């Protein structure tokens, strides 16, 4: 299946993300609050673009069934933004005036560029890494969670069966719609690289 092939082709990048200091810090709870604050703000900015990319994907959907599924993904993004709003309140972050890092802009402009200009299959390939990587990371980190773990909510959200279900739906649609072309492979790989850079920026810039 295409989604599995793409995941396997990017195994090294995935492993680098899992082993990233940001992710390790999330897991063992040692990630600095500043880095997490910075990450939450950037991720909220990113998710706004992510939701719009899904909206553009709906415009390019071929069936109502696809449109309905993509609509469900937008709901998922809005739920994530709800989680971020909660963090913003606790951590005193103003999500209305986030200045994006270059790494964030690189990712959002890549998504926008694909969403406006690319075919549906390419858009889905560009969007899949964000979902599947987060579920993968959340699931791997879940055994670390305890009652007072500072990043308990984050880990539990992304490892949840509900989020896992969204990932599966996206992967299923990717398999149905996309074909194994260089553009699809490139979009998936580039997005995965953007994920890695996205983890790096809050540590280097906060």
């Amino acid at each position, binding site marked *: 299946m295409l989604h599995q092939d793409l995941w396997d082709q990017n195994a090294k990048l995935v492993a680098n993300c899992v082993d990233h200091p940001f992710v390790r810090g999330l897991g063992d709870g040692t990630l600095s609050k500043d880095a997490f604050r910075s990450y939450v703000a950037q991720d909220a900015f990113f998710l706004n673009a992510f939701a719009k990319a899904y909206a553009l994907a709906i415009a390019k959907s071929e069936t109502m069934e696809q449109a309905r599924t993509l609509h469900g993904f937008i709901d998922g993004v809005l739920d994530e933004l709800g989680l971020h709003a909660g963090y913003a309140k606790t951590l005193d972050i103003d999500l209305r005036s986030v200045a994006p890092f270059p790494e964030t802009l*690189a990712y959002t*402009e*890549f998504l*926008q560029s694909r969403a*406006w200009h690319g075919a549906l299959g390419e858009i889905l390939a560009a969007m899949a890494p964000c979902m599947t990587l987060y579920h993968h990371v959340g699931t791997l980190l879940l055994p670390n969670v305890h009652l007072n773990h500072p990043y308990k909510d984050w880990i539990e959200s992304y490892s949840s069966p509900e989020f896992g279900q969204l990932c599966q739906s996206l992967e299923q649609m990717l398999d149905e719609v996309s074909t194994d072309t260089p553009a699809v492979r490139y979009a998936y790989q580039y997005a995965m690289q953007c994920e890695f850079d996205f983890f790096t920026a809050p540590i280097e810039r906060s």
Partner: protein
Amino acid sequence: MNANLNPSEQRSLAAIQECSFVVNAGMLWREGTEAKFLDSIQDGSLPKEAFDRWLVQDYLFAKGLTTFQAIAAARAPRSTQKVLIAGLGAMDAELEWFERLASERSLDLDVPHHQTCQRYVDYLIAAAYTQPSEVLVAILFGVEVAYLSGWSALEASGPYAEFVTRWSTEHFLAYVHQLHDACVLHPHQRQQDQFNEVLRHERDFWIMTYEG
């Protein structure tokens, strides 16, 4: 644009380099138009590897810019379309020129974008669809005036004279002035911000061409 200049001076390179976009960009203007790559073209010390990297990545950039220009032309009001369509038409010859050069040097143009080039192209294509058409003209003006200024500062001699000449012509200068005229005719408060953003990408692109 400096309103005190007489009409002939207003069409000069110096006049365009004193327009408000350039002045308000501050240090970014120099950062986006001066580069080690260009210095090395001038003194003949440019490593072949850097030149080949520039040629391939600039071709990939030019393809992305062509996409941007096509969308910008389609979205522009009729009064701005003439200059945008003329610019788009010129891109065909530009791409063919790169293709011929790459073929002569046995360079493969079917390669991935360098991440810096990818970022620049993604910025342009995302902007093409999401920014107001007045801002798109300012973006294109930024790309072209930076290129014109960067190359025009060099003397057309030595092994790279062909390149210096190509992007220092009166024809190119006139085109850049027309783009500036279109910006002035249709102002927008976001023009300067995006002009500055172009210069940041230009700066990063030049660094990439030299350093890899």
